[in-house]
């Protein structure tokens, strides 16, 4: 039997399409991940007769959710506790918008977990304690009640626009993986809506009932070297002859054309490129390789370990000062993580793996 790394599930019969234990576990962990938010109404915009002492709302928000989906509960809180009746009637939710207390505008279409991680890495290059080391501190948001800067927010502040953006991201991820969007467009309307309902209700089963039809599987059939890797032959299409030996795992994580990944650096830019699951030599594309390819100045190639000697039979590479580190779903991701596995197990609900890079402090 081939080797299974720590990130892979126990061997299973090739025909068994049920999700293995580890895959299900990491999907569940990603889904259940939450981040602490503190939402404070801009004091200058509070309507007359508001209860100023209470104009702050704390929520532990799901990473896979979106700000427009938090609006109803925030609104309910403000109407019940902070605003008086006259103010409640005059305020229009479509005029509301958020920024972080440092002035960063929050986009409606970013998953909340990504907003949090992207801000976390920003604090690693700013004076003051980095959010990465004080994870119990909530992300402080300011809620504005009027004059949204629509040109910068890009989307309307409602759940429908957010849903459209979410579906767009799922289709883009589908296209990245397979070169077409047949899996997504092949879903019935009720199933497509089920994905969004799953997010809205934060219902893992409802979401994965449909998402399992479009997300790559991790069961078996990772091509082992030696032997031609099926998907490294060409980025644009796999010759049918590559599928000779084992029965092809049509939807396997290591058979995709490319893994949907975006790399976020502190204060930008966001980098997206094709990320094949396997390298030319057939070995898995690791996070270390990905980072070294796209941000070599922050993730320089590791110097090789010295040759083994009698006194040091298991030499380790010389230690060097680490400049930066990757966060995936808020977790410090091991550099030997395989990109294909990340794509199947730690992607967000929109299908994308978001790798946020923090800068190490001395």
């Amino acid at each position, binding site marked *: 039997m081939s080797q299974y790394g720590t990130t892979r599930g126990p061997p299973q019969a090739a025909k068994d399409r049920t999700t293995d234990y580890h895959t299900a576990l990491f999907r569940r962990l990603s889904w259940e991940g939450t981040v602490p938010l503190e939402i404070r109404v801009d004091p200058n915009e509070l309507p007359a007769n508001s209860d100023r002492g209470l104009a702050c709302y704390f929520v532990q928000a799901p990473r896979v959710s979106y700000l427009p989906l938090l609006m109803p509960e925030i609104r309910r809180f403000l109407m019940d506790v902070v605003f008086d009746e006259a103010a409640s009637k005059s305020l229009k939710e479509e005029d509301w918008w958020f920024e972080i207390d440092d002035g960063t505008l929050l986009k409606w279409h970013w998953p909340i977990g990504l907003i949090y991680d992207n801000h976390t890495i920003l604090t690693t290059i700013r004076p003051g304690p980095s959010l990465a080391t004080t994870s119990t501190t909530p992300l402080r948001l300011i809620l504005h009640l009027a004059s949204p800067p629509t040109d910068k927010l890009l989307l309307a502040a409602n759940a429908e626009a957010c849903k459209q953006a979410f579906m767009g991201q799922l289709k883009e991820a589908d296209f990245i993986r397979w070169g077409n969007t047949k899996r997504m467009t092949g879903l019935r309307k009720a199933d497509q809506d089920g994905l969004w309902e799953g997010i809205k209700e934060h219902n893992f089963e409802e979401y994965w009932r449909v998402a399992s039809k479009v997300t790559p599987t991790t069961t078996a059939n990772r091509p082992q070297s030696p032997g031609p890797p099926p998907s490294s032959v060409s980025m644009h299409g796999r010759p049918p002859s590559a599928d000779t030996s084992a029965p092809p795992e049509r939807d396997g994580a290591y058979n995709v054309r490319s893994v949907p990944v975006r790399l976020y650096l502190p204060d930008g830019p*966001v980098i997206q490129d094709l990320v094949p699951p396997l390298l030319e030599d057939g070995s898995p594309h690791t996070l270390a390789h990905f980072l070294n390819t796209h941000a070599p100045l*922050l993730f320089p190639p590791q110097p090789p370990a010295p040759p083994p000697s009698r006194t040091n039979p298991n030499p380790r590479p010389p230690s060097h000062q680490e400049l930066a580190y990757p966060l995936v779903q808020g977790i410090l991701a091991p550099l030997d993580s395989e990109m294909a596995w990340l794509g199947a197990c730690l992607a967000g609900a929109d299908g994308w793996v978001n790798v946020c890079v923090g800068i190490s402090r001395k």
Partner: protein
Amino acid sequence: MDVDTDVTSGGGTARPWPIVDINPEALAALESYKKRDPSKVVVRFKAVGNAPIMKQNFYKITASNRFQAVIQFLRKELGWKAGDPLVPHTPPRFASPQLVLNKPQFTYINLAFSPAPDDTVSNLFKSFCTDGHLIVNYSTTAAWG
């Protein structure tokens, strides 16, 4: 026992964190990644359904632009020029000018999906270019929504 008080001081203190503990090498690296890519890529616009057709549909667009800029450019090209009869020397850019009223509201890549408006042309080009072009379809109605 060695205790590094600098690192282990508890949270909640107001002690200012010195910026000097951030590695200058890392900051220099970030600066270099922030530099905008001045190169241009070819974007090819294709009308879908009854959207107005552009006479010129190949454009070189700066790669560091966001997709939002492409959408704005497209709207401007379709609406503004044709709606300006005071420039007689401008050749008609549309097969049927009356269709200009149908402003494109929907844009897609490769007839497949709508990208996020804040994604860059450069990222989209790297992932989705076809024969050296980034194909942007535009429609007056939702087509692959």
